[in-house]
């Protein structure tokens, strides 16, 4: 598995890594910076990670996915730093013999990443900024 916290995620790197002669289906999820959040115009996002722990948590999620589905390759890349509208922030990729496992595992990986991996996102609007999810 390829699991990394990087300054810029790279789709080509993910796709290269997912190559396997035994794989018939690859599912790739790419999270990008959207221009609005809850009706506000987003100018940029800034991501911060507790990197050693984030990598550990990502590996745990990847291990759970590999225990549950027959996966040939697995990629989780997450960016840190400042990201502008349209830029990719996270890439999750899974290669499997059949597409069912690829889709299901890819969805699982991104859903779980959002729940437990210690990475934080600050949203900057025109006039202020907020740490996402911080307050009820």
């Amino acid at each position, binding site marked *: 598995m390829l699991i990394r916290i990087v300054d810029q995620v790279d789709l080509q790197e993910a796709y290269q890594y997912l190559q396997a002669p035994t794989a018939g289906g690859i599912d790739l999820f790419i999270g990008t910076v959207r221009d609005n959040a809850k009706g506000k115009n987003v100018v940029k996002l800034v991501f911060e990670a*507790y990197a050693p722990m*984030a990598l550990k948590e990502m590996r745990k999620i990847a291990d759970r996915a590999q225990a549950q589905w027959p996966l040939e390759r697995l990629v989780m890349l997450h960016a840190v730093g400042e990201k502008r509208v349209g830029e990719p922030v996270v890439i999750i990729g899974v290669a499997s013999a059949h597409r069912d496992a690829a889709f299901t595992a890819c969805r699982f990986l991104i859903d779980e990443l959002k729940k*437990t*991996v210690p*990475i*934080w996102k600050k949203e900057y609007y025109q006039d202020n900024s907020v*740490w996402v*999810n*911080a307050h*009820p």
Partner: protein
Amino acid sequence: MEILLFGITREIVGHSALRVPPGEETLHTVGDLKNWLASRYPELKKLSSLAVAVDSEYAMDDQPLSPQNEIALIPPVSGG
């Protein structure tokens, strides 16, 4: 004992790490640490959740602490 701070907790405390004075001998567990922090930084109580990581693993409130541990505050995550 040093505590690593991220995201909104870093902004609330005003530093990326917080040194607990050696005199604070009541901080035996994760729960003790949380209470001590909440009393010093009331803004922390307004967060949706606040976890503590010990040696880069999520820790329960009853987990014992030692000065050798790497301790970090984990406010609500928002990656992805």
